[in-house]
Structure formats: structure tokens, C-alpha cells
């Protein structure tokens, strides 16, 4: 920690010379896109979970009400976080990462199991996935380290080793959870951030080769993973078990057609499609809102992602750039994987759709991250004003 208090290093991140209040408003396009997606997500939760909620609890609005409360709270948190000086994340990055690693260690010990996977922790009545915290901690830490050592990124000592060590540590903890998708995402985000931070390209070549070898071994060892591949390529081979979900998902997506069955009129949500308000909610979006609606939602995500990178590019400092880019890359990867899996473009992995999938803490964390991007955005908006004041 002492490292970041040294003057020569803090130079890397240009401390604002003015009060936070003066640094302008949040980036409105980004904020509006997030709120819009959250709103659509919550409404779709209502439609998608209607039948399941009634079947499981007798209250059709059961999941909707919970998600809506978290959405409102999450948007509030996002705005509050947006108004903070993101320098605090620079200072606490390693702390957050260490905390996340500690939580990951706890998972195999006192974790909560859902659908046969032990990936959740319940602390103080709140249930969450430590892997999500780990992703955030990693992005912040990488951002901090890369901005501090921005002039040494071309070396192995500063440009590869620390990040690789962190990635391997987190990945091995995730391997204990048998959480392939989170491992994959962490590696992808880490790789993107290293690429942005300036790690030399040859390391990526080595990394890709290592990844390929690892994947080959993994697939050879993990029976359930190769079964996933079979189910992906030929779901009809086991229609009532491993192929069931993807077949049901295709029914939902395919029957949507161009304009969809109409909002609320999904048939597959009547307990045919498992996880219909969760990982597979996008299939219900397709079924009800059609190709038009589905592409519309994807376009909103695309706009949000592009705006996120725009903020990263226009960030005040290297830390801001890297963190904003890291967070928005995480979002993009999750959207890509989720929709890819739901539409059978990719083999099944348990990645939820940001803002849409049911899950309160995940939504809170997601909006928290959007808040960080918003806080970074504040400077780019008022860049000129800030420069003048500095001058």
C-alpha cells in the first residue's frame, strides 16, 4: 500500500486540483443507457418470471418485486458512486482484490450451493458471488499497477509477471469452484487490460498458446465440459437432459420471429425453459419482442459499450482509462457470452446477462461498476473547464 503514497508514483494519477463539485455532471448518454437497460431488464424479469414465480411461490410478482427493489437501490448507488472521486478506488484497489481473494478462499469452505455449483457466499444475510468481486478487484488493481508502472510496461518484471501471478492465483481459486466461465472472463479481461496497459505483444502470443494447451487439457479431463460441447453442437442427441435447455431456448428464440409474440405472451416461460428469468432471459426477450426487440436490446448494449470506451478514451488519467475500459470490457464480454450461449452460438456456460438476469447483488455490483465509469466520465465532460482552472 505504501507504494501508492509515494509522490513519484502518485504523479501517475493526476490528482484533481479542484473540488469534486466543480467537475461537472455525470455523462448523460451513459447514465440514460444504463437506466434504460435496467428498466427494460426489470420489466422483462416480470414477464419472464411470471409463471415460474407463481409455480414456485404462488405470487407471480415474487421475483419482479425483489429485482425492482434492487434496481432502484442499485441506480441510487450508481449515482452516489458516480459522484465520488474515483481516486479512492486507486487507493483501495489492492484491498478490494485481497478481500475478494479471501472470499474466494471461503467459498469451498462455507459456500452456498445452487444448481449443483458452490459459487456463492452468504455474509450478513447477503448472498453474492465472490468471483464478481474478484473481477472488480482485479480490474481496479490492474488499473492502478499499470498506471503506476506505465513506463515499465514493456518489461517482463512490471508488464507481465504481476498480472499473470494475480490471474493465476484467482484462476486457481475459481478452479476449486469449477467455475469455468468466471475463469475465462477474468483471463479475457486481464488480457485486454494488459493489452491496453502496454504489455508487449509477444506475451499475448505465448498466453494464447498457453490458453490453448490449458483448454485442451481441461476439455480432456472435464467430462461435463465435453458433454457441454456435444450438447452445443447437437442438442437433439440428449433432448431431455443436457440438450434440453438449449432446445427449449431455441424454441423460444425461433418462435419469436420478426416481431415476436408480444410482450407477456411468451409460451416457453411456462416452465419449459429453465432459468427463464435468469441466464436465459434473453430467449424470452427474443420470443416476446421478436428479432426487432432483440436487436434493439443488443443495440442499446452496443451504444452503452461504445460510450463506455469513449469515456475511457477521454478519461483524466491512465488509471481512469484502464478502469473504465476494463469495466466496460467486462460488461461487453458478459453480454457477448450470455447472448452467444442463449442463442446456441457458443457452448453453455453460466454467464448472466447484465441488467437483465435475476439476481439482486449481481445487479447492485453491476450498477456500482457503472457508477465508477460515471465518476470517471465526469472529468471528460468538463475537461476544458478543469484545464482552465488548473492553468
Amino acid at each position, binding site marked *: 500500500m505504501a507504494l501508492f503514497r*509515494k509522490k513519484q*508514483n502518485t504523479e501517475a494519477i493526476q490528482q484533481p486540483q479542484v473540488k469534486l463539485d466543480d467537475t461537472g455532471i455525470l455523462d448523460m448518454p451513459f447514465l440514460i443507457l444504463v437506466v434504460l437497460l435496467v428498466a427494460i431488464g426489470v420489466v422483462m424479469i416480470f414477464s419472464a418470471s411470471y409463471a415460474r414465480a407463481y409455480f414456485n411461490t404462488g405470487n407471480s410478482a415474487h421475483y419482479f418485486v425483489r429485482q425492482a427493489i434492487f434496481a432502484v437501490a442499485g441506480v441510487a448507488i450508481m449515482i452516489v458512486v458516480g459522484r465520488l472521486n474515483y481516486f479512492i478506488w486507486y487507493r483501495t484497489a489492492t484491498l478490494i482484490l485481497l478481500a475478494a481473494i479471501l472470499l474466494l478462499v471461503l467459498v469451498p469452505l462455507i459456500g452456498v450451493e445452487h444448481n449443483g455449483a458452490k459459487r456463492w457466499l452468504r455474509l450478513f444475510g447477503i448472498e453474492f458471488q465472490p468471483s464478481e468481486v474478484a473481477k472488480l478487484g482485479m480490474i481496479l488493481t490492474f488499473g492502478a499497477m499499470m498506471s503506476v508502472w506505465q513506463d515499465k510496461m514493456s518489461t517482463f518484471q512490471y508488464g507481465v509477471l504481476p498480472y499473470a501471478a494475480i490471474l493465476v492465483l484467482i484462476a486457481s481459486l475459481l478452479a476449486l469452484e469449477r467455475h469455468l466461465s468466471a475463469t475465462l472472463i477474468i483471463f479475457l479481461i486481464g488480457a485486454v487490460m494488459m493489452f491496453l496497459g502496454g504489455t508487449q505483444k509477444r506475451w499475448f502470443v505465448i498466453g494464447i498458446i498457453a490458453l490453448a494447451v490449458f483448454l485442451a487439457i481441461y476439455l480432456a479431463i472435464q467430462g461435463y465440459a465435453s458433454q457441454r460441447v456435444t450438447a452445443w453442437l447437437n442438442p437433439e442427441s440428449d433432448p431431455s437432459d443436457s440438450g434440453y435447455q438449449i432446445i427449449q431456448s431455441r424454441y423460444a428464440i*425461433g418462435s419469436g420471429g420478426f416481431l415476436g409474440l408480444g410482450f407477456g405472451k411468451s409460451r416457453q416461460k411456462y416452465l419449459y425453459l429453465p432459468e427463464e428469468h435468469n441466464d436465459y432471459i434473453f430467449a424470452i426477450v427474443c420470443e416476446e419482442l421478436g428479432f426487432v426487440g432483440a436487436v434493439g436490446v443488443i443495440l442499446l448494449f452496443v451504444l452503452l*459499450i461504445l460510450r463506455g470506451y469513449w469515456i475511457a478514451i477521454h478519461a483524466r488519467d491512465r488509471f481512469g482509462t484502464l478502469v473504465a475500459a476494463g469495466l466496460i470490457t467486462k460488461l461487453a464480454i458478459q453480454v457477448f457470452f450470455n447472448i452467444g450461449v442463449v442463442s446456441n452460438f457458443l457452448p453453455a456456460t453460466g454467464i448472466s446477462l447484465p441488467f437483465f438476469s435475476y439476481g439482486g447483488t449481481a445487479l447492485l455490483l453491476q450498477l456500482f461498476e457503472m457508477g465508477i465509469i460515471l465518476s470517471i466520465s465526469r472529468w471528460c465532460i468538463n475537461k476544458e473547464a478543469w484545464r482552465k482552472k488548473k492553468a
Partner: protein
Amino acid sequence: MAKRAKNKPNIRILPARKPKKPYDRERANHGVLRRTTFIMIFCGVLLFIPLIGQLFKLMILEHDKYESQAITNQTRSTSVSASRGLIYDRNMNALAASTTVENVFIDPLEIDRAEHDENRTNEKQTAAFIADGLGKILDVDPGRILELASDVKMRYKIVARKQPREVAEQVRAFINENNLTGIHLENDAQRYYPFGTMAAQVIGFTNAEGRGSEGLEAYYDDTLEGTAGAVITTKGNYETQMLYSYEKYYEATNGNSLVLTIDSTVQFYLEKNLKAAIEKYDVQHGAFAIMMDVNTGAILGMATEGGYDPNNYLEIMDPTVLEELEKLSDQMDHTNKESTEYKELADAYNQQVAAARLSQWRNRCVSDGYEPGSTFKTITLAAALEEGAVDLNNTFYCSGAKDYPDRDDTLHCWNADGHGTESTAQALQNSCNIAFADMGIMLGGEKLYDYIDAFGLMSKTGIDMSGEGWGVFHTKDAMKVNAQLTTVAFGQSIKPTPIAMVRAIAAVVNGGYVLRPYVVSEILDENGNVIQKNGKKVIRQAISEDTSRTMCELIESVVTDGTASNASLPGYRIGGKTGTSEKLDVYDEDGKQTEDKIVSFVGIAPMDKPQYIVLVALDTPSTSTGMYISGGVMAAPVVRDIFSDTLLYLGVQPDYTDVDMSTVNVEMPDVRGYTLADAEQMLGAQSLTYITVGDGAEVTGQIPMAGNMLPGNSQVILYMGQEVPTDKVTVPDFSNMTRAQANAAAVNSGLYLQTKGSTLSRAVVSGQDYEPGTEVPRGTTITAEFTDHTAQD
């Protein structure tokens, strides 16, 4: 790192190591932004292009495919079963009808999912609970239900079929009380046959799936079945309701009903008399009978004895087979279940069961050929007369045996003494084999073959019943050779089906018309409207009406003067032809041809205007009865009894004008209280005479009692004031008495004697209805059957 940052020399070294590459912040920033832009394009745009492409493929290009698959996935089709049509006899008595029952089935997948659902609230929703509960209600082993439920990929496992409504209600109550899912009921139809075994092989039965599988049920399956309807509803998984659902109803079309030409009364008498004959002659291999309208081809009755109950068609009814099966299963009980011997026994058992079932389901009247024997002589004679090869003036000579060129063995007549010189008519009356062999040669093999074909014996009759078989005949070339021709001419070495034979002889007497026989006269829709009518269908004319008329006279003379006198029935002009044949292709265990014989008789009534034809065949009567095994002795009386039971019912009035009234039963009137003159008139009306006892003014008593049946021309006793004797008399043994002897014996005992059967003087009593030695009231009528035992064909 913090330490190293403090280390000043280290800072000095750093620029020294890389003097040519000072860190250029602007350039580095530019590099970061360039790379971020690259990632922005990649993650913000490029990643999503394939996804949109994939969605386009699924949602637009393959929309129809997945939509239809999805709809199949989301809809439940509940079939609305069509009720199967009824089968009526010609008087609209239902011979086959259906009731609604229910099948109970489970959905193992649904049960499994519900049981292992995380959010399950119903503790009773387990396979074990369901198995236990259903097992109790349906009387099924719960272990068996658990086994069915363990096949969790299946959605339809029948637990119990065809449960009556009360049981189905119990199942429903069980489901509702315990709030269970995964147990379902579906309607099914149970076929039932109110008359049981009657006409079983004609009607057939429906199998477990409700499909007609034998007889008319099979032949008219599509007509009877109707079209099942369906209700198609969208349903959520686990049968949950959908908020937006649609429902489509396809109405079921009920099956059509059949009205048969079969008359259950006639059928009853056919079967009753066959059963009696089997009993009386100890017939070994069953018997069959057909009664047909000679002018239309309508079948009034068709019976195969050795049948089954279509209500329980798997049950074997043949007592001999049952005995053998019993033995086998006994043996199996005493054999080690692992041994090969046990396996062999089990195989034998199963084979016997299967064979016995097939055999009892078989309608021998249409499916199998049989040996018609001398009944076939009518065909040879009709052909010869039609062709002019023979006329009524021909004479034949039978010495008992004759050799023919091209025939290796000597042809023996059934009467080894020979029939001597006979006219054409006598040749038929005597059923003389040699005369008919001669006739065959006079006609020629090719011609005989053509007539056999013309009479439709070689082809299927086209009767509307399943499983009709073909007859077995020689080829035309083979018929040119005397060896075959002489044999076929008197009815040996051929096997037509019984129905074809009946149709051929019907053609002989009906003016020569070969008909298509039929059993279904009308097809009714569910509202009873006639939608199809079957009737007489002439296929061709085989002989002229003149020849047919001549044949009628000749055939009648066989009963009045020939081998078929045992078929005569007072008041009716019966014609017919007897037949006795060794079975051709039955071999015993040593491969030797058995002595099995089929005796048969084809009778026609009334001969002045032929209306009904009856064929009765008894397969292998036992030699143990001591009677001569022949169609004349055994089958002719059965046909006579059938005619006696049915002709009046069918509206054929007896004509007693030329009949000896003593062979007809009349009813004793009640003449008590009348004057003698009145009594005389009343008795005269019944062709009865009287003697009086006492001299009172009016009749005070009578023998026999009023209402008793007694032969016409009998003398009754009227008591004019005298006491009527109430003593009993003993029934004498009439066996083998001639008519005169029997009458005398009856008068001696104070009894009346009614006769039936042969009226020829050489006929003797072969049976009586009261056992000898029985004590009966004075004046009782004893019926004795007279048989002409010389009718050895």
C-alpha cells in the same frame, strides 16, 4: 517495491540501462488510446455481429421450423375417442357393443421432476407414495408401478387398462385429495359381446388397443372404428395453465354400425344342434355349420364349434387342450426352473397356448378347406346334365368295384356289394361312386374343371369376412387324367372352403346363379341412417334354370328315397346330399394317414321353392359310439333338427296335406265338461280319435291331459263319469325296433309314440327322449328317432 523505490542508486541505473528509450508520456498515452479504440471497435461492434447473425438465422430463417417445434412442445392433444359402432343381428339385437372405461397411466418424467423440484411443497408428491396409492386402488403391485415410474424419460406408462368408472373415480379422488401430479386417466372403450360365445368367429373381437383383430371386427374395422377427435390446448410444462392459451377442438366421428344378415335365433339353433351332435357322436375335432339364403347369398347363421368367448378371447375353451396345458404346467412346477428341460416345457406350453388360441379364433367356415365327399356329386351331376353328357335316362352299373384306364388302383364303391343297375337319379340317391366316376369320364376332365371353376369353388367367394381361404383343386391338366378325374367326380381329393361349397350347391338349386355371399346387410351411421346396403349379387350363372329344376327334384329324392332319409322332416320338402370323406392331409405321429373322417350334409328347404341351405360338417366322429360314421347317419339328422327348429321361425309354413298325421305332433284340447258330440268335434279338428270309458252325458276326464302334445291320428281316452286312472307306466326300450314294433310297444305300455327321422321302413329307433324304465304318467308321448343305418355315405 517500496524499498527499491527508496533506493537511489537503483534510479540511477535505470536510465543507464535504457539510454536510447526514454519514456515518452505523450507517445505512451497515444498508444493506450489507440489500443482502447481498437478494443472499443472489437468489443463494441465486432463481437455483436455474429450474435445478430445467429439471431437472424434462428428467428427469421428458421422461424417456421422452431415455431412448429415449439408449438408441438407446448400443446397437449387430448384425444376424444370415437365410440366404436355396434354389430346388430338382422333383428337389431346387439351382438357387439362398447362401454366407456378408463386407462390409468403415469407420466414418469413429470413425477420425477415434481419429486426432485427444489421448491416442492407437497410431501406426498413422490413416486413411492403414488405407487403405493395406485397399487391399492388398481390392485397392481406397487413395485411394478415404481418400476414404470423409474423410466423417467418416458411420459406415458400405462398402469392399468380398461378400468370401470368406479375405479377411475377412486383414482381421481386419490389425485385430488393428495394434490398429486403425474397421474392421468384417458377414456378407452371396452367392447362387450352380450351373447358370449355365440357366432364368436364371425363377429371376432377387438384387441387390447381396441382394434378389430378377428372376424367382422377386423374386416369392418375402419367402418366400425370412426375417427378419434382431439382437443389441442396450449399447456405450460407440468400441466400448468397459460395466461394466453388457445384451444382447438376436432370433433370425433363415431363409428358406423353393422346390421348382419345373421339371425341370432338361427345362430343359436345352429350352435345348439352342433353341440348336441358333438356330444352324441363324440366328435373329435369340432364341427361347423352354415345356413344361407340360397336366392340372395345372405348368411343367416355360421357356426364353428370349438370356439371362444370374445369377451375373454385369450381364455382357451377346448377342454382337451386345457387338460394338456394343465399337465404341462404341473410338470413345469416339478422341474427346476433353471434347467433346459424347464425351458423346453415352457416353450411347449406357450406354443400350445398360441396354437389353441389361433385355432379357437379361426372361422373354419371361410378360412379352411374341407373334404366335401359325396356332397360334391351334386356338382358333377349338375355339370353333366347341363352339358348333356348325362340325362335322366342313363343307366349305370355298379358291381362294387371297377378299374379305369390310367388309374392304378381299383375304384371301390362305398357299398362293396355294388348297387347294381341304377338310373341317374338312383346313382345320386345311392351316392354311387362308380356311377359318378363313369359320369365324370362321360363329361370329361376339362369340362368338370370348368364347372368347378364356374360354380366358384376354386376362387374366394368374396364374402365380407376376413381371412377367407382358397380351396385346393387339381390343375386342369391333371383333371384330364382318369386317376384324378374319376376321384374328383365323386368328391374325393379336393378341398373347397365350406362357404364356397354352400354357394356352389345353392347355385345348383337356385336356378344356377353363383352369388356373392354376405353377412353385413346394412351399414348405419351413428344416428341410425343407412349409409350402405348390401344385397344379392349374382356373379354368374353356372347352369340353366331347367337343369337347376331337374337337380332340385333329384336332390329331394335323395332324402325321400336315398341315403339322406334321416333328414326328412314331416310337413316340409327337404332335399340334400350326404358326404363322408377321409381327411386327406392329416397324419398321425408315425406319419401314417389317420382314419379321421369328415361327415357332412348339405340340406335345402323347401324343395318346391328352395329358400334355405344348411351345411353341417362334423370333423371326425368317434368310432366308440358304435354308429356307422357317415354323413347320412350323423350329419343329416343335425340338418333336419336345424330345419325343424328354424323353418317355422323363418316363416316357412309346413304343409301337412300329404303327410301322415301320425308323424306330426298335435295338442290335446281340454274337452272336460263338454258333451261327447262337442268333444268329438274338437278332437277331430286336431285329427285325433277317441274311445270312451263309462256312459255319462259329458266328459269328466281325459288321457292325455290337456296341452300335452301327441302324434296326429292317435286315439285318446275320454272318461264319461268314470274315475281317471292315475297309475304310472314304465317307458319301454325302443332301441332298434322298427316303426311297427315301436308303435305296438308304445300302445302296450299306454303311451303315445312320436317319431322323427327317417321314414323308410328299414329305419330303426336310434334314440328316445325318455330313458327306458322311466316311470311316466299314462298317456305320455315318447319321441323316438328313427335312423336309416344303411345310409353309409
